[in-house]
């Protein structure tokens, strides 16, 4: 009987698994729809808020005054201030990159600026990319940024919802992954440079609304994107490839009709994995730290609709297993990032948004 009890106790702890192996603390709250976070060399953090503010968390406290001199941001629908990315030389040059929706409700586009942070203000601001053409929908901006090892900048641009057909043509930026130099010029080795029918900034195409982008330790470029009703995708990005939207998809239109009856086609890439029903992925990181040794090399996908974070155990470029985490928060998770301390940081998507830290219990 005692043995049976011990077995039951053991099974209980095994079944509760990770729930017993971390704690979640609030770093700051009172944020309005936080979208992205960057960790400064001195331990401070910068957080973008979608309504167009860049906030500093210093010494664990949220500075009341937002960072000054931000450019005009179009705030409407899904539009606003999106991602922030620090230059690798930030400690010496204070340079950062911001993506946001620019323009008006009738003519808006995803834009990227380069700027320096000086005395709680942005200075030396230059626009290095604006998606073309402008659109009249406040949806599907993409807006994620990442740097490749060669120091070129990747920018995701969504297909604007009503312009999904354009994701399959190369004469526009809708539904594309863009690659530019940090000064906005186009790298000469981009796959479509020199083609008259293509914009030279395009690196890959056939995307929908890509809100997760990372370059892993082994150099793999991972991108996830929202599907419509179902069909969220994780993609292994290779330059010049067509990722299929809207010609092939595992999702349905919101109306209940097909976007396409096909899920595969010649010349179009398959996702590494996809989610039906949608989890609404937004935010992404690869865990590289030592604080949670079991998580090393795992990909973490923040999920808005599922109110969770998916932990993806990867092996040989495929997803070996998935764990749905942090559902106990019952919060839409916009972003998941690993901090320099090896802890995970979560941004919750609400007008009472929080920065949460996931750390070991002790």
């Amino acid at each position: 009987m005692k043995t049976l009890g011990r077995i039951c106790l053991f099974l209980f702890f095994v079944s509760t698994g990770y729930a017993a192996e971390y704690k979640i603390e609030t770093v700051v709250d009172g944020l309005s729809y936080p979208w992205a976070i960057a960790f400064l060399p001195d331990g401070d953090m910068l957080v973008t808020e979608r309504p167009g503010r860049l906030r500093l968390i210093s010494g664990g406290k949220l500075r009341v005054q937002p960072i000054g001199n931000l450019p005009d941001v179009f705030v409407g629908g899904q539009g606003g201030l999106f991602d922030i990315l620090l230059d690798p030389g930030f400690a010496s040059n204070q340079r950062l990159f911001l993506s946001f929706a620019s323009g008006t409700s009738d003519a808006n586009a995803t834009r990227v600026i380069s700027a320096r942070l000086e005395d709680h203000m942005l200075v030396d601001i230059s626009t290095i990319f604006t998606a073309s053409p402008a659109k009249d929908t406040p949806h599907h901006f993409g807006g994620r940024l990442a740097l490749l090892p060669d120091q070129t900048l990747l920018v995701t641009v969504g297909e604007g919802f009503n312009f999904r057909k354009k994701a399959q043509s190369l004469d526009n930026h809708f539904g594309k992954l863009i690659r530019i130099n940090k000064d906005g010029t186009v790298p000469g080795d981009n796959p479509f440079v020199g083609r008259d029918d293509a914009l030279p900034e395009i690196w890959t195409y056939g995307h929908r609304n890509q809100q997760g982008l990372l370059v892993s330790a082994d150099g793999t470029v991972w991108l996830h994107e929202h599907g419509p009703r179902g069909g969220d995708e994780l993609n292994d990005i290779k330059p010049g490839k067509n990722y299929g939207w809207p010609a092939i998809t595992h999702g349905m239109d919101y109306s209940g009709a097909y976007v396409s009856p096909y899920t595969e086609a010649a010349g179009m890439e398959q996702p590494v994995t996809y989610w039906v029903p949608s989890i609404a992925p937004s935010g992404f990181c690869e865990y590289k730290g030592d604080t949670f040794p079991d998580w090393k090399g795992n990909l973490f996908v923040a999920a808005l609709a599922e109110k969770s974070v998916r932990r993806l155990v990867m092996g040989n470029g495929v997803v070996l297993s998935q764990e749905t985490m942090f559902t106990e928060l019952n919060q839409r998770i916009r972003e998941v990032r690993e901090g320099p301390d090896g802890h995970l940081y979560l941004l919750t998507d609400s007008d009472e948004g929080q920065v949460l830290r996931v750390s070991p219990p002790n």
Partner: protein
Amino acid sequence: MKFTKSIPAFIAAVVVAYLLLSVMGTQFVLADVKSYGLTVSLADRLAATLHDIYGLVPAMLILVSVTLFIAFVIASICNQIIGGHRRYWFRVAGFTSLPITMMLVKFTMGVTPFALAGTGFGLLLIALSGLAGAWVYVRLTQVQEN
């Protein structure tokens, strides 16, 4: 009594408008799919058409029903107050009501959730679906009145 008799005619009108709208919507989307270089077989076309007729029921059938109901009530009131040919009031109501609804959806949501409504030609096809529904309604209610 007259109202009770018009219910089957209204249901028929909604079914006709919905079927036309659904079938044309599917062909519109499949034309896009072909434009990406994929081959759409007849079997795939039929399967997709049937899929969408079923798949659109929760959203589009309700939208068509409510839209045509409001449109026909307005047409009936106009006919009684202003006079003229009843069938013209209903045809105008049928022709205009569904595109107006689609544009209202776009105005309120900022996007076009039904692909067919994304172009001017698509809106014309939607209008013709509503016109066909109105034609059926007028025809059936006239027969009943005779």
